[in-house]
Each structure stands twice: as C-alpha cells, then as structure tokens.
C-alpha cells in the first residue's frame, strides 16, 4: 500500500504514472483535488479528477486527525526554512500510517532530509516519480 501525493493524481490522469499496488490518499490531497474543480471550473481535467476522487472508497482517504497533527508538530517545529504546509501535512500522514509517499515533487526529498534529523521519528519513505 502506498500514499499518493496530489501531483501524482494528475500523472495518473494523463497516464504518466499507474500505481501497481493499492493506494490511499491523505484527506489533504482529497481536498486539494476537489478544490481544483471548485476553483478552475468544469474543465475535462478537473471533472475527471473530481470523478476519480469521488470514486475512491472511504477507506482510501486517510483523515487528518490528532495523531497526524502531533507528528506534524514534531517536525514542523524544527523546520526553520520555508516549507509548504500541505506538504508537511501529507508527510505527517505518511509517517502516521507508515506508508511510502509517492510524489512527483522534488521538495519532498528536502522534507525527507529534514525529518530524518528529528529524533524518535520514523524516516519518511518517499518515491519520486515522473519528474
């Protein structure tokens, strides 16, 4: 089982990435994806992304709960350089669930390095695809 970053969903839609095993998404990703349709209107891409997300089983969307927030706080408190909050919330979800995060965002590698320096946190497992 893997955790898909939001940008990877777009790579699925255009065929650049096909997950070979079961996957989940963070509620953050789910929201970002739905937001895209709300903001940019009913383009083919947005309608398709919306339909894909709506088709996901409830179990495939991991809620952002107290557990994820506590992990987020652990490493976000130690990161002084600007990092995007959504990235860190998704990373916290990956750490909380122990799932490998599949992303197309190279900045996740920098976040992985930053998290590795935090004592008592498991490593953030990532796979960067299609960059």
């Amino acid at each position, binding site marked *: 089982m893997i955790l898909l970053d939001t*940008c990877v969903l777009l790579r699925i839609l*255009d*065929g650049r990435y096909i997950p070979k095993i079961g996957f989940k998404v963070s509620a953050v990703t789910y929201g970002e994806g739905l937001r895209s349709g709300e903001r940019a209107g009913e383009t083919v*891409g947005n309608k398709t*992304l919306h339909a894909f997300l709506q088709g996901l089983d409830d179990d495939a969307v991991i809620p952002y709960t107290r557990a994820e927030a506590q992990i987020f706080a652990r490493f976000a408190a130690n990161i002084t350089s600007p990092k*995007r*909050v959504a990235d860190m919330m998704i990373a916290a979800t990956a750490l909380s669930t122990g799932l490998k995060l599949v992303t197309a965002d190279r900045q996740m590698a920098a976040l992985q390095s930053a998290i590795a320096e935090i004592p008592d946190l498991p490593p953030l497992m990532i796979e960067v695809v299609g960059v």
Partner: protein
Amino acid sequence: MDTMNTVQLSIRGVPVKVAENLKARAARDGKSLNALVVETLCEEAERKPTQAELIARYAGSVKDPEEIARMEAELQSFRDEWVE
C-alpha cells in the same frame, strides 16, 4: 422502496442459465424475481468501483497535456501560497 420514484425496465437477452440462477436464488431467499433483480441493480449502481476499475477508467483519460500542465501549475501555485 419509494415506488413513486421508480421506472419500469424490460431486459432482453438474459442468458437462460442466468435467469434460472436468479429465479432459484429468489425462491431460496423468499423474494420475487423482480425484487431480487432490483436489489441487485441498486447494489451494483451504488457500489464504489475498485481501485483497479478506477485506474482502468481514468488513467490516461486526460489527453491534453496543456490541461494537465495548467492543473499542475495551479496546484503548485496554491501550495506556494503557503510559503512564508
């Protein structure tokens, strides 16, 4: 079931074996054949697709690379807005 919000459908071409199996299952469950078929259709219509079905349905379905590029840029822009 709200019978005011139903329609009638006629189904042709049902294989004999399938019809026999459905009749046998309806009799076993103490239902009419109609009730069983409606129940089965409702379950299928409301069922979430499997992930394999989702991938088969949507992977590669957006053919316009410019549209995906726009969506990626919009996502990136949204995330960057959070940078202090």
